[in-house]
Each structure stands twice: as C-alpha cells, then as structure tokens.
C-alpha cells in the first residue's frame, strides 16, 4: 500500500507539472519524428492514474525488433543515413544499395512518406550551411526519383549544422555530420 501510494504521488506530481506548463503554449513539445518501425515497445506508457487498490500494473508487449526491416541490421532499410565527402553533394556508389532498398520500399508502400534531412559539418555560416544541407537532401531526392519514388512521398529539408551526430572537431567527427538522414513519417 505504501508503495503504491508513493507511485500515485509521483504520478500526480508529474500531472501537476504538466498542468503547470500548459499556460505556455509556445514551448516546444514536438517529439523527434522517428520511423514507425523504430517504436519497438507497443503500449509503453500505461499510466496507472488510480490510488491504492485501483492501481494498474504496466505490461510491456514488444514486437520482436529483429523482424522489423527497419531494425534488422542485415536489411539495408536499417541504414537511414547517406554520408558525403567534404564540400561534396554527390551520392557515393557505396550508398547505392541503401537508396535502392528505400526506393523499393516506398514504391511498394505508396502511402508511406519520408523526409530527407540534409546536414553539414559546423564550418562556416549557419545559414549558408542550411542551403548546403538542402543541396545534399536534394541530391538524395533526385536519386530516389530516378529509382521510381513519387515526388509526393518525399520532402527534402535541411538542418544545416544544427543537428550534429558527432560533436567532435576532428575530420572523422565532421564526416559523420555531412549526411542525409531518411526520416519516415
């Protein structure tokens, strides 16, 4: 009983904090968009809002992640980043199989949409880097159009230097940041 009461207090506090923050609608509350295939845990937040004997214990039922093509490391769909050379906007041949796999998936699933997010390293102007990241995203978009994907299934956008995958300063860190991420909606 004592334990469940503690849990109830904690939950109520969380609810209170949420209530407190509602008058400030401008605060960002958008969770990062992930591929649907990424959400391995279904029913992950069965909140037990009751007190005492009415408490509800949470049960997690997860899909087998290895059966999801987006998470199966042997499936090219699990690779959702295309990396670029310094000052380059050319999709390298190494990434051809990845783009082909995603293009096949999108052609077979015409209701699925993907956002192509261009990224750069942090050298130079933030705004110019937005434009450079866009150029990379557009290169991937054009390659996938050539592989048969409909334009309306894709949007090319840019994060410029604002979303580094590696915050280091050496060349290998910078290379990780020169990329296009495929984010399924």
């Amino acid at each position: 009983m004592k334990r469940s009461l503690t849990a109830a207090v904690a939950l109520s506090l969380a609810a209170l904090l949420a209530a407190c923050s509602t008058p400030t609608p401008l605060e960002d509350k958008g969770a990062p968009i992930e591929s649907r295939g990424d959400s391995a845990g279904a029913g992950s937040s069965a909140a037990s809002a009751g007190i005492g004997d009415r408490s509800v214990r949470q049960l997690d039922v997860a899909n087998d992640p290895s059966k999801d093509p987006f998470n199966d490391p042997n499936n090219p769909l699990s690779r959702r980043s295309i990396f670029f050379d310094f000052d380059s906007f050319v999709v390298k041949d190494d990434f051809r199989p990845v783009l082909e796999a995603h293009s096949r998936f999108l052609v077979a699933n015409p209701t699925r949409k993907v956002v192509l997010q261009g990224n750069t390293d942090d050298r130079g102007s933030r705004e110019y880097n937005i434009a450079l990241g866009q150029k990379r995203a557009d290169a991937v978009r054009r390659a996938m159009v050539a592989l048969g994907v409909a334009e309306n299934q894709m949007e090319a956008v840019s994060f410029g230097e604002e979303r580094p995958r590696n915050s280091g300063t050496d060349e290998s860190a910078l290379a990780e940041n020169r990329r296009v991420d495929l984010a399924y909606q």
Partner: protein
Amino acid sequence: MRKLFRLLFVALCAALPALPVGVFAQMRIDVSGVGATRYPIAVANFVTDNRVPRQIADVIRNDLVQSGAFRLVEQTGTLSESANIDFPALRSRGADAVLGGSVSRLADGRLDIRFQLSDPVRESAMGRSTLVVSEGDLRLAGHQIADYIYEKITGQKGIFATRIAFITKQNNVFRLTIADWDGENPSVALRSSEPIISPSWSPDGRRLAYVSFESQKPVVYVHSLSDAQRIAVANFRGSNSAPAWSPDGRSLAVALTRDGLSQIYLISASGEGAPVRLTTSSGIDTEPVFSPDGRFIYFTSDRGGAPQIYRMPATGGDVSRITFGSPYNVSPRVSPDGRTLAFISRRDIGLVLVVRDLASGSERVLSDGGREESPSFAPNSRWIMYATRSAGRDSLMAVSIDGRTKQRLSSDAADIREPTWGPFSR
C-alpha cells in the same frame, strides 16, 4: 491528501516561471581595450531615501566604462542634482564632467529620478532632466541616463538602453533570450528542444523573426514579444530560413528552397499573400539583408563557384558582386547609417569579422578569434556584436567600430550565439 496536492500545485506553479532566470546567474562580461581618448567623468551616488533597492549610479558607471569612451574619476559620497558642487576639487582630480542626482518615491509608488550633468571647468550645468519610472525599470532608467550623457559628450546616440536577442543552448535546450545590451536582465521568449537560429528584430522593436526547427524542418516565425503570439510566415515545402526585415517592417526577405536550390524571396510580415521570388540563379542564394534606405538587398551567393556577397535592387534583378579577395565571404550586414558593410571572411587564421567602407571599398579585419559568425550592428552603427567559439564554448563579442574596445558575453553553463541587436527604444 487532496489538500496537499493543491498546495503542491500552487507552490510548483509559483516556482516554475522563476526557474529560467537561474540559468543566467553565471553570465558575465569581460571588457578589453579602451578607446583612443577616454573622457574623464565623475558619477556620484544619487541621493535616495533607503527604500530604493539599488544604486542607479552603478548602472550608469558600468555603461560608460564598458563603452570604452569614458574613464571614471573617483567620486565619494552622494551628490544631488541641485547640490553645490566643489568644482575646484573635481578639476584637480581631472574630471571634465560630473553627474549628480536623486531618486525619490512618488505617492503612487513610482520613482522620480532627477539628474544634472555639470562641467567643472566652466563651472556650469551641461544639462539636466527628470525620469519617472516604475521600480522594475530602475535599471532601464540608469541606461537612459547613460545614453543622455553619451549623447551630450560624444554627439552620438547611446545604445545603453537598447536590447539584444540571442540563442542559448544548454543541455540541448534552446532559448531565444532577450536582454539588456550588456546581457543583464534576461528573459526567455521561446524555449525549444530543437535548434533556433537567425533571430532578427523588427524595426519597431516589438517582434522578432527567427528560424525554428521544432517541426523537424526550418520554418520562419514572426513572434510578438509582449504577448508571445506568433505566426509561421514561411512554412513552405523544403527549407525556410534567413529572415531579414524591410526597413518599413512590412515585409521580410527570406531564403526558400520550395523551387529547388535556396533562393531569395520577399514575403509579407503578416504571412499573407504569395512569396515573390527575387533571385533566379543556378547557385545558392541566401542571407539577404536590406540596406537601411530599403533600396537594395545584400546577400550571399555561390553563383560564381564560392560564396561571396552580392547586391541587387530590393525588387530583384541587376546583381553586382561586392566582395573579392577571399574564397569565402558570407553573412553581410549593413550599418544603420548605411556607410559600412560587415561580413564574415575566411582569412589565414580562420573566419573573422571584416568591415568594408562602402564608399571607398577599404576593408579592415576587426576580430582575431578565427571562429566568428553572425555579426549584428548596434543601432548607432558604433558597435558590432558577433558570435565566436573558443575553448569549446560559444560566446558573444561586441567590438567598437574602430576595433579598439571589445567585450565578451559568456556563460560557463551555456553556449550563447546568434546575437541580434535591437533598434533604439521609442
């Protein structure tokens, strides 16, 4: 139990709005260098009753010293605006000006501030004035008195009562922050878990345009500061970025990729109507900025192979290249007096701040950090604030246009970047 919850709710809700202020506790300013000539001035403590919370003279002294244009002559004790001044003693200490004043509380709780600036050499008053402010605006009143002194003595408008905006990043939380010119008195206009870049003040100082990534792509917003209402003025397919206000505050030049590569468009500040495309190049066009007379737009373009600064009429067409001599010249800003172009240029030591006299074409490097970005002119054209990176931290620098005085605004706890200097207050 329910009563306890209610108490907790009240306590938590009362505490939460105060939380962000603590973030800035460690923000600090370091000043280096001084002007070619520093005007010696004595600023006495103002006469007050003991119910006034802070000494307004401290704010005035800090402003004058940080400007690099003044040096403080020691002045002990208080001096009211109407007291008899010991001019010979001030002359012997080398003071060319002395400020005295008083603060008293009116029946309605507001503060009545009177001050007089005097000339010890001529033994005469240079000027006197009165301000009536609410207690919360005491600091602002100090800035306004410093502006009064600065203008009396240098002949130029002061910027001590202006505000700046910048972005802080702390633990992957981004805050669009408004503060006094010296980083004091901060308040947060927008908090987000995704990046915010390129804030820009509207000419009336009431709104900010900026780029937010909260919807997982760059979208341009216009945000009204007093009521936190905002409009997504550019949310087209692709990326929307680089907002720049027209001098009349009615429209914005932006960079959009709706038609392919980044190009420059004109949109209305209300978000209504269709964008008008201003550039049609086979390269990247971005970072537009209006000349203060509204006739031209300066922008960055790599149409020649590498990013350089170009200029075109504000209606588009007739593009001419402005910068040469470096393979990377970006982020143009025109001074409010229309005389100077500031930009970021790659030179031997890295990316530095360069100013170019638009009439003569002569250029001067104003910084030596090598990681500079995002310059912004003070409204009196005498200072440029920019972002720099050193020791793994982003901080802001303000440099006088003659390059002699610099001040750094930094925090141990947060990265501070993307400064934009607000207009003169009206």
